[in-house]
Structure formats: C-alpha cells, structure tokens
C-alpha cells in the first residue's frame, strides 16, 4: 500500500480530480487530498507527496516548507514542471514560475493532464516511458516545405503531417501523452516535452520549413541587407507565436514577464491574444471543472456571431457534454469517485479527451461513438475567421468576447456560476 499526499498549488485542479480516481485502486491510499479534505490533511504518514498545479513567486515559502519536510516529491502534470499553460499569464506581466526553481522532485509525470496510471508506474519504480508522439501519429512526414502557413487544417487531408501543411505541430519533439490531441486532427502543443528547450527547437524546425515564405528585408547604408520590421507573410499568418510555440513553456523558457497590460483576471489574461481556432481547447483546459461549459459557450457564441450553421446531431452531442458538465460538478462536490470515473469516460467519448480536442466550431472533428446518426451529420466544416462581438451563456457560465480581423481574442470575460 502506497500512501500519497496530494498538494494542489494553483490552477485548474484537473490533475487533482484525475488522481482521485486512484482511490479505487487497492494499492493506493490518500492520506491527504485537496478535493477530499480541502488540503488540511497531514502528510506525516505519506510515502510520496504529489504536487500538482502551477506556482507563482509568492508560493516560494510554501514550496520550501514542503521541501523541508524531507518527503519524496513527485510533480504531477506539466504545470509544476514548466508553469504549464498558466505560464501564458506571464505574457501579461504575471510571475508564474516552475516549481523546479525551488525544489527537486524524485520524478515528474508530465502531461496536461497525465494519466494516473503513469504515476502508479513511476511509484513502482519504472522510469517514465517517453515514446515519440510522431511514431504513433497516422499522418506522415515528408521533406516538403510549405508555401503558406495555415490556421485551420483541411479536414479531408489526414495523410500529411501538419508541419508539411503549414500548421505548427510540436509532436516532433514531444512524447506520447494521455490526451493525444493528434488523434482528433488537433496539432500537438507539446505538453510532454522530450527535449530540452522545446519552444526554441520548434521555432527552429518550423522556420526551416517556412523557407518559401516571403520575409521583409531592407538595405543598410553599406549596401548589405537587414531583416525588416514591416508585416510580411510570417507575421501576418503566425498570429500567436507565444501561444503556438510557448503554450506550455513560457514560464520555464523565457524569464522576463511580458509588458502587456493585465486585464485584472488571471484566466482572461491567458485567453486574450489567443486565436479563435485555438481558444476552445485552451478554455476547456484552464477553466477546470467549468471547462466544458466555457468552451461550448465560446464555440456557440462565435458560431452565432459568424453565422456558422450547426446540425441537430451536433446540438444533441453538445447537450450530452453539458450533462457531463453537470455530472462532473456533482461528482466533485459529493466526492463520488465512481460517478467521477463515469463522467470522465463520457467526456472522453464525446469530447475526444479531457481537454475537448474533438469539439470544434460547426461540429466534431472525428466520429463520436455515442452519436445516433452518421458522421456526415455532425462533422466539422470550414471555419471563417472574422471580427466578432459574441456572447453566450448556460447554467454554469456566461462568456462574452470580441475578436479582431485576424480572429484573435482582444477582450474576454467569463463569469462562472456554481451549479
């Protein structure tokens, strides 16, 4: 029997509730878990202290105190290891830091979110098996350079690697993960890095493939050339370099806080400046237990504002997801682990994974097992990117936002309602 104490720092709590499903396993006992005892439990009898969530500089004293207790520390999830997706707050001047700045863990289980089974195998002494993600991807890489950067893939082409199509995918330097966004036509953003400095390497790799794109240059006084600052194909089509290449690594790989003004809301700071085509998955991730509701409201608000038609089957599947959202809130409130497992399975069945990679504007990217009609009745269509002011609400959240002509979110507000 392994006794675990779970410490949740800040963030979405998804890792914490995933870990809760281990409580059914006879070889694991939780001596302290934030979703059961509110973090008040003692870790005196714990064999391992599992740290989840991201930290800010003000958490240093708490982390040093954790370290001083002499327990074996395991980092669970990408957030404590690199700052995770919440590191994107640093773009607006926040001070998210990787926990590894203050303490050394005995092991790290990476992913957003990882599988609790990986934690079990690490505890049993097996080293984390990090297989390259590309080796499992059904798309095939060629040496073809792209002629333009695209933002939304052609849903009918499932043969060619995203990077050859002109859509950055960090799968080339990432390891197999529990969420497998690539299975749902969603490019990888690298939550499980396999190399040092994933963003730097990814920019280098993508830049190599972008050699056919026009870049602005200007002449210097000595009749040589200098890279120019005028907008060109790269700046126009890569609308969010931070969110694309630094999605999970901003806090760990760029130590300076951004100089952009904060909106005053931590999560809105992450959503602002993200392109609309990436926003549903980011919202589903960072809003934690309310993620499904926020992501669906975002999608439905944009569809209504941009005039995207949605089929009845899509609406039906989305209402099933909303039922799963209510089920998730109830299961977490009542600490009902069996119900929680059922809800997570349901979310995975419809949404593809826990961060809803399969859910998109206009429909679903891949067939859903529980659908009553054929895939052609709810498959995703083309996404028109335009400037909109949009709002939508349901029983759990109210979302309103506006995008600019490039489809980048410029204003974002989200109000959460308890069930």
């Amino acid at each position, binding site marked *: 029997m392994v006794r675990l104490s779970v410490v949740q720092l800040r963030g979405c709590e998804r890792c914490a509730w995933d870990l809760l499903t281990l409580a059914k396993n006879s070889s694991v006992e939780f001596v302290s878990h934030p979703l059961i005892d509110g973090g008040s439990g003692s870790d005196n009898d714990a064999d391992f202290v599992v740290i989840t969530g991201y930290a800010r500089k003000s958490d240093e004293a708490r982390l040093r105190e954790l370290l001083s207790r002499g327990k074996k520390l395991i980092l669970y999830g990408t957030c404590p290891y690199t700052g995770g997706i919440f590191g994107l707050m640093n773009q607006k001047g926040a001070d998210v830091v990787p926990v590894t700045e203050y303490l050394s863990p005995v092991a790290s289980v990476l992913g957003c979110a990882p599988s609790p089974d990986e934690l079990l195998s690490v505890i049993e002494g097996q080293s984390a098996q990090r297989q390259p993600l590309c080796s499992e991807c059904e798309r095939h890489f060629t040496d073809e350079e792209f002629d333009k950067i695209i933002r939304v893939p052609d849903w009918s082409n499932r043969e060619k690697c995203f990077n050859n199509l002109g859509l950055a995918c960090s799968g080339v330097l990432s390891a197999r993960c529990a969420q497998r966004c690539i299975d749902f036509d969603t490019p990888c953003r690298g939550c499980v890095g396999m190399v040092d*400095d994933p963003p730097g390497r990814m920019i*280098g790799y993508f830049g190599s493939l972008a050699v056919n794109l026009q870049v602005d240059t200007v002449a*210097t*006084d000595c009749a040589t*050339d*200098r890279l120019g600052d005028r907008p060109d194909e790269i700046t126009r089509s890569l609308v*969010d370099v931070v969110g694309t290449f630094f999605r999970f690594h901003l806090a760990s790989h760029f130590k*300076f806080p951004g*100089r952009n003004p904060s909106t005053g809301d931590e999560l809105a700071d992450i959503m602002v400046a993200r392109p609309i085509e990436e926003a549903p998955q980011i919202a589903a991730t960072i809003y934690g237990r309310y993620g499904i509701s926020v992501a669906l409201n975002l999608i439905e608000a944009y569809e209504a504002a941009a005039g995207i038609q949605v089929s009845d089957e899509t609406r039906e599947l989305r209402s099933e997801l909303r039922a799963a959202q209510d089920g998730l809130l109830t299961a977490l409130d009542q600490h009902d682990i069996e119900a929680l497992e059922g809800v997570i399975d349901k979310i995975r069945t419809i949404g593809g994974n826990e961060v809803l990679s399969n859910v998109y504007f206009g429909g679903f990217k891949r067939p859903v097992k529980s659908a009553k009609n054929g895939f052609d009745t709810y498959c995703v269509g083309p996404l028109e990117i335009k400037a909109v002011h949009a709002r939508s609400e349901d029983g759990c959240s109210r979302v309103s936002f506006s995008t600019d002509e490039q489809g980048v979110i410029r204003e974002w507000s989200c109000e959460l309602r308890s069930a």
Partner: protein
Amino acid sequence: MIVAFLCQNCAQGAANTAGVQRMRYSDEIHIVRVPCAGRAGAREILHAFNNGAEAVAVIGCCFGACHFSDANLITLRRVKIVKKFLVEMGYSTDCVTMYTSRAAEGDTIVGDFEDILERKYDPETPPCPGGAK
C-alpha cells in the same frame, strides 16, 4: 551587453577585416562565432536573452552567398518568428535583428554594429528584455 552571432565565413571575416583596418566599434558588442548563421536559431537567441543580453544580432553571409547552401535564409525566418515573439511579449522589435555582411569590407559589419546600438538606444521604441534603455 549585445550578443552578436557571427558566421565564420562572411561576418567573422568582415570583423577580422575591420580589425586589420583598425576600425572601432562599441565594447558593448560581444561576438560569438558560429560556423554558419544557420547555427544561431531561436534557442541561442532566447538563451542569450535569459542570460542577460539586452539585444541580439545574427550576422551572416549575403543572400545567395551562404557557404552552407541557404542556411542564412532559413535563419532569416527563424529570427523573424523570434522578433514576433518579443513583440507579442511587449518588447521592442529591435531587440533581435539579422544582418548580412561581406568579408572583404570591414565597414559592412561595423555599420551593422552601429545600427544595432542606434536601435537599442532609440527612445521611441519599447525596451528589450535584458535591460532598460
């Protein structure tokens, strides 16, 4: 401190020529010689910033004259992406730039160095990550 990645063919050659001609340039410039401008990418540029560089320049061969096929053109795109990254973070677009130079003409690289300094101290633009203007 300004870190300049100089390719060993044209840029370092130009710096050597400038040295032979006793040309002067600022002691703020710290030269890192690389085999080719293609060797200096986003990793090296961000590493320089994270370790205190106030501005970074990558200097390679003239377009069409790269000694390693077209690596300077590849670096041009990589540096452009890093430029965009810094702008999205709220920093100056002038923090990182790519130049070209000719080995036989020392004034080409000294001109590049002067251009970097002029841009770094331009009060009209936002600061660079490594320090105030």
